[in-house]
């Protein structure tokens, strides 16, 4: 073995061992669990455990709560990704404008929510959303509008939580887009301005094509994040009202750890895996085209 060979293995083996133990092995176990009916009965007596093949998946398909959780999760992603991307883009455009001063200050403030703990800020926003004592309804009242039942109305709970999530995460892509915007060719912009194009046309024909791929990549990566929402419903709404904010991961946590149906919960985890796999394949294809990898 050459010297580099030895060093290469020595440097990489520790982390690969950890990954194998903590990641590869459990994932394989998840496949095994998902074809058994592991439940609290099995916790009591191993003899109660049996192999059920695709039975868990069939039960999931029969379970309306699973479909509702799936629908909720997709709604979160479908509504949330545009909200987050648009907010990040708007903030990046603002921060890239030549006439804005004190950029570092704004940048730090706008990014700050991203580094905070989800649990702590979820608690704060739960209070903000309070129907009687929350700041949001107070602000609405100050301009004469009636208060809104943000977290208590099943039709408003998802948008309300998304308001919070957007606030929390928009800073990250704001920075990414700022970098992309700074790479937009200055000469092209000058040429467009000299040609008499207004700001909107300049945006559409110069900026957007230049940052398009970055936008797309960011959107696709966000989807994976939104598919894994858990902490927000856990802290703010307990999956309600009327299970309108139960996401796939929340459903999996309840099924697995609250009721100890690990067989079913592993099946849900594999469904989530399949969804994220689909999203990531799209992302890889885009990324390869841009030589990101």
């Amino acid at each position, binding site marked *: 073995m*050459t*010297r*580099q*060979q*030895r*060093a290469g293995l020595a*440097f*990489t083996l*520790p*982390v*690969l061992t950890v990954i194998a*133990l*903590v*990641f590869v092995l*459990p*994932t394989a*176990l998840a496949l*095994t669990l998902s074809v058994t009916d592991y439940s609290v009965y099995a916790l009591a007596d191993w003899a109660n455990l049996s192999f059920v093949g695709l039975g868990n998946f069939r039960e999931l398909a029969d379970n309306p709560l699973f479909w509702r959780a799936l629908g909720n999760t997709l709604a979160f992603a479908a509504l949330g990704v545009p909200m987050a991307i648009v907010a990040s883009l708007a903030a990046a455009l*603002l921060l890239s404008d030549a*006439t804005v001063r004190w950029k*570092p200050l*704004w940048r*730090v*403030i*706008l990014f*700050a*929510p991203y*580094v*905070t*703990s*989800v*649990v*702590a*800020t979820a*608690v*704060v926003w*739960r*209070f*903000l959303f309070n129907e009687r*004592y*929350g*700041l949001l309804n107070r602000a609405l009242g100050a301009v004469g509008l009636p208060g809104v039942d943000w977290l208590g109305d099943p039709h408003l709970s998802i948008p309300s939580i998304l308001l919070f999530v957007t606030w929390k995460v928009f800073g990250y892509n704001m920075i*990414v887009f*700022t*970098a992309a915007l*700074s*790479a937009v060719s200055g000469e092209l912009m000058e040429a467009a301005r000299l040609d008499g194009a207004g700001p909107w046309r300049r945006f559409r024909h110069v900026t957007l094509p230049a940052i398009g791929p970055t936008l797309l990549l960011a959107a696709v990566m966000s989807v*994976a994040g939104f598919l*894994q929402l858990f902490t927000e419903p856990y*802290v703010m709404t307990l999956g309600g009202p009327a299970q309108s904010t139960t996401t796939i*991961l929340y459903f*999996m*946590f309840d099924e697995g750890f609250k009721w100890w149906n690990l067989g079913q919960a*592993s099946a849900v*985890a594999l469904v*989530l*895996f399949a969804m*994220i*796999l689909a999203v*990531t394949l799209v992302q890889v294809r885009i990324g390869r085209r841009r030589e990101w990898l």
Partner: protein
Amino acid sequence: MRLPRPRTVVMNLAAAAAAIVTAAPLAWMVLVSFMPRGESGTSPPPLWPSRWSLENYHELLARRMYDGAWFDYRILPALGNSLWVAAAATFFALILTVPAGYAFAKLRFRGRERLLQMLLAALVVPGQVAMLPLFLLFRELGLVNTYAGAVLPSLAGIFAVLFVRQATLAVPDEMIDAARLDGASEGRIFAVIVLPLLTPVVVTLALFLFLASWNDFLWPLIVLTDQHHYTLPVAVASISREHAADGELMMAASVVTTLPILLIFLALQRYYLTGLLGGSVKG
């Protein structure tokens, strides 16, 4: 003096407005935490404390004697646990992933490409798939409800390895080759030549890792069953279930959770933000 153009005024006001709206929840969090108990539970809610009071922090953080018994939310121990777990996770993750990232970038060894592809493939699998069986696995190993159990999963730093690899690719090969010709061992090359060049990357990575570990919620929620071992997010979530109505107390708990991270971020934000983009952010 020339008056600023209207567009300049509008843009600057917009930036300021965005910043105010973004900072408002955090500012209100701090203000409410200093209000006397029950004040925020009035309609319409006040915007400023009628008097600044430390009673919420006292109740949250201090052990109180009531009716002859001690009561304690155990927030300070949770804070200590969070610091300890995050520091350990960061430290060990760095030790594991930085050499590996370097090896994948600069060392030629058999199986390197195949391992790299497997790592990339592993990115696809969300961590939650492994969580349930991992719990059962840790139970066999006796790691449930231990700090090691909380730290171990964060050491599987696939992103970190790829991140370090990406950054190391930029290190010029000539320096490394020259050192090899001089007879230095691979370990010395890594420690003496490459590592100093990588320090901004390592610092950024350390920040990311610390942040991720501090804010981690789902895994500590599952693996830490004993209140003595709770990290801060788990402790706050637990209190928030029973004390949803205690606005001021919960805001104080949120302040305690977010303040350390915000301070670290403010102190090191240049590293963090430039680390995100490799220097293309202009001041």
